[in-house]
C-alpha cells in the first residue's frame, strides 16, 4: 500500500513538472516577448546597432531582463522591462532617419532637391529627440588635390547644416567635419564607386 502511494506521488509530481514546464514557455506574455525579440532582430537588420547604439544596447539588456523576470514569474517587472525594450526599439528605429546619406554631383556642394524631404524628416526627428546631437560629415571622391577635397567636403557639410537650420534645428545641435577623400565608402577606381563617395553622412552624438 505504502509503495503504491509513493509511486502515485512520484507520477503526479512528474506530470505536474512536465505540464508546468510546458506552461511557462508559452502564453500571451511569451508571445509579447517573442514579438519584441522579432522587432529587435528587424531593427538590427536595419542597422540600429551602428546608427543608434545606445538605444540598441538598452533594448538588448531590457529584453534579457524581461525574459529573466518572466521565467521567475515576476509579471509586473517583466512588463516594465518589456515596455522599456519596446520603447527603445521604437526610438532606435525612428532615429534611423538621422543616419541617411546625401549624395552630391561631381565637384558640387549644392543639395539636390530630391534630398530636401529627407533633410526635413531628419530635422523633424532631431526636434523630437533632444538627447542627441548630430555631426555632419562631408566626403568626396579622390579626383582633385587632397586640400581641395577637404575644402569641398566642408562645403558639402556646411550646405547640409544650413538646410537643417532652415528646418529649425538649433545650430548648437549640429557640428560639421570634412573628411575630404580620406574615408571613401567605395573604391575610387570606378565612376560608380566615386559617385558613392561624393556624400554627406551623419553621426549621432549622444549627450
Amino acid at each position, binding site marked *: 500500500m505504502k509503495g503504491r502511494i509513493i509511486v502515485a506521488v512520484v507520477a503526479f509530481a512528474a506530470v505536474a513538472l512536465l505540464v508546468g514546464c510546458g506552461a511557462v514557455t508559452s502564453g500571451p506574455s511569451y508571445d509579447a516577448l517573442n514579438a519584441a525579440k522579432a522587432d529587435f532582430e528587424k531593427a538590427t537588420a536595419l542597422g540600429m*546597432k551602428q546608427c543608434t*547604439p*545606445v538605444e*540598441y*544596447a*538598452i533594448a*538588448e*539588456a*531590457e529584453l*534579457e*531582463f524581461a525574459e*529573466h523576470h518572466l521565467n*521567475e514569474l*515576476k509579471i509586473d*517587472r517583466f512588463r516594465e522591462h518589456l515596455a522599456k525594450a519596446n520603447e527603445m526599439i521604437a526610438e532606435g528605429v525612428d532615429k534611423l532617419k538621422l543616419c541617411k546619406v546625401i549624395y552630391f554631383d561631381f565637384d558640387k556642394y549644392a543639395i539636390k532637391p530630391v534630398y530636401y524631404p529627407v533633410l526635413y524628416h531628419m530635422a523633424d526627428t532631431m526636434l523630437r529627440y533632444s538627447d542627441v546631437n548630430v555631426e555632419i560629415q562631408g566626403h568626396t571622391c579622390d579626383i582633385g588635390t*587632397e*586640400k581641395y577635397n*577637404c*575644402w569641398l*567636403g*566642408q562645403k558639402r557639410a556646411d550646405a547640409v547644416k544650413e538646410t537643417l537650420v532652415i528646418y529649425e534645428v538649433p545650430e548648437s545641435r549640429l557640428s560639421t*567635419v*570634412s*573628411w*575630404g577623400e*580620406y*574615408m571613401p565608402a567605395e573604391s575610387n577606381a570606378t565612376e560608380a564607386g566615386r559617385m558613392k563617395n561624393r556624400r554627406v553622412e551623419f553621426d549621432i*552624438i*549622444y549627450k
Partner: protein
Amino acid sequence: MRKVLIGILVVAFAATMFGCCFMDAKRAIADAQAAVDQTKAKGTITCAPYETASATAYLGGAKEVWGDKDWCKALEWANKSKKMGDAALAAPPCAVSPCLSMMD
C-alpha cells in the same frame, strides 16, 4: 550516520553555492559601479556609445536582482556590466579627420 553525512554535504553544498554568488556578486557590483563611474567621468559615450550604454544598463539590472536576493543573476549581470565598462574605457579615441590639420 550515513543520512547525517549526506545531510551535511547537501547543506554545505547549498551554503557554498549561495555564499559564492553572494560574496562575488557584491564585489562584482562594486567593480561594475566603479567602471561605469569612470566611463561617465571620461565621457566614453561619445566614442564607445554601445559599450557605455550596455555597461550602465546591466549595472541597473544587477542592482535590481540583487534587491530580489537573486545573487547569482546579479553576479552574471554585474560581470557583463564590468566587461562592457572596461571595453568602453579601452576603446580608442574618436577618429580625427586629417582635413582638420590641412585646413588650418
